């Protein structure tokens, strides 16, 4: 297994508030890796640093042997990292198909070819029938799917998924798990996901990283991590206590 992404000791502070505190982890090609942790643990900040939306204050991020920390978001995407947004950002007045076509145009200059690839991607995400619908008219679960489709259309080696299961009912979650597993298996896409839905994390991830107050408190296979007392205390137990 070759290493695809390696994050070493990255930190990010917002006016003294430490959002991410010396987090380190690595992904091999073909991994499905989940980042979990309570709200405000720094998961999205971590994502934004990898995706190029924020530059880390310290530490390095290496993707395919190349330093990407501090690189602009569009350059990171061109290298092969696709991302979704936790708060979905479809192109609201464009059709679903045009949304995905724009992603597909990253590595295809011909609009016709991009469009037909976009349709393939839409079919994979159960959105083919909705392709002519204006994105703003989609339901939330479909918008989440559109986020994944659009990112996937850029032919990423690594897909960053920021809470794509949030707000889905269990059957929809199961379907999304199935879709993501298919992408990983059939297209060889490595997946890094932030997720609160433990049902999905347990079903999908080969490895889990737990963030708490910006620090990585545990890392390992999901079955081990959920039994870790620190994790139960800071995250899972806290959820139960709520």
């Amino acid at each position, binding site marked *: 297994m070759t290493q695809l992404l390696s994050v070493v000791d990255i930190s990010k502070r917002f006016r003294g508030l430490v959002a991410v505190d010396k987090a380190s982890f690595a992904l091999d090609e073909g991994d499905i890796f989940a980042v979990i942790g309570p709200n405000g643990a720094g998961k999205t900040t971590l994502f934004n640093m990898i*995706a190029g*939306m924020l530059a880390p204050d310290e530490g390095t991020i290496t993707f395919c042997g190349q330093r990407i920390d501090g690189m*602009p*978001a*569009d*350059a990171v*995407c*061109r290298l092969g990292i*696709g*991302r979704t*947004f936790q708060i979905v*950002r*479809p*192109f*609201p*007045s*464009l*059709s679903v*198909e*045009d949304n995905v*076509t*724009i*992603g597909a*145009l*990253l590595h295809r*200059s011909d*609009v016709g070819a*991009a469009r037909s690839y976009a349709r393939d991607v839409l079919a994979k995400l159960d959105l083919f029938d909705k*392709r*002519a619908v204006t994105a703003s008219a989609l339901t939330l679960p479909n918008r989440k799917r559109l986020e994944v489709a*659009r*990112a996937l259309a*850029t032919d990423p080696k690594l897909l960053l998924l920021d809470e794509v299961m949030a707000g889905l009912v269990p059957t929809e979650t199961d379907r999304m798990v199935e879709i993501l597993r298919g992408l990983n298996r059939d297209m060889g896409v490595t997946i890094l996901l932030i997720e609160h839905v433990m049902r999905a994390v347990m079903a999908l991830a080969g490895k889990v990283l737990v963030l708490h107050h910006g620090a990585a408190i545990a890392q390992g296979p999901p079955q081990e991590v959920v039994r870790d007392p620190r994790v139960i205390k800071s995250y899972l137990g806290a959820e139960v206590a709520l």
Partner: protein
Amino acid sequence: MRALWGAMTPRGKALLAILVVALLLAPLAVNRYLLSVLTLILYFVYVGQAWNLMMGYAGQLSLGHALYVGLGGYVSAALWVHFGIGPWLGVFPAVAVGAAFGAAIGWLGFRFGIEGVYFALLTIAFAEFTRIGFDHISFTGGAGGLFIPYEEKRLGEWWNLRGGQPFFYYVAFLMAAAGVVIAALLSRARIGFQWLAVREDEIAARALGINTFRAKMKAVLVSSGMTAVGGVFYAFYNNSLFPAQVFDIGRSIELILAPIVGGLGTIFGPVIGAFILTPLGEILITAIDRIGINAPGVKAVFYGLLLMIIISVVPNGVWPWIVQRFALVKRQP
């Protein structure tokens, strides 16, 4: 081109063909005054297309497009008046100067994150200080204006844009047709999709690998360059240029009304908008003249009212409404 034609329903094709034929034959049927109104309409179709590429597609609001008209006009007219260089050649430096100013504005705005209304203010500022600058450039006649002499013997020199009303009408027609085709082709190309992405959500566009700075720069360059060509036409059609007139913000506003009324981000919006607004404005002025009221600015008030009505009745513009109502373009698959 074939794909563009193929995207229309038979009804749309028929209407477009009728419109083109009617416009081509118009000089045979209408009088000189009506022909001048039609020329004006086609001019606004052309510059409306240029502005719409930047605003309607790439989402960058420019309220200073008169700058590019003025620069294109002044460069080509000055080359002609002072050096005898015809507009057929002068159009190239005209476009270069227009695009250079566009690039400067774009670079300042996009590099330093000046967006939306603030970007629009920047475009106004450039147009205004260029106006003031030209007031003091004696080479181009300063505030007193630059005049292209009317020479009887040159009237047939079409390459020098010398001719009568029918000639200028056909030039305007060609420009409008070219503007429509250019806009249609760009909007369906990769860059057109990148512009839409930038317009819709810049952060999401960047997350899809689009270099949004470069996409916006392309929009501003194409738009300013195209508009400068309109300026060359303006100069040789009117034979005179005054800084206070060509660079006036009123000119910039006038130029953006057709696409807004017709439908932002649509190919035929600027066309239908110009065909609605320009004749109404002319009718109004004629009517006021007949009645004998001296009311400067009445056209602006009228346009303002019309704009309010249209925005409240068909907020997306007239063209999207027509498309829906009469099925002129095939629905997306």
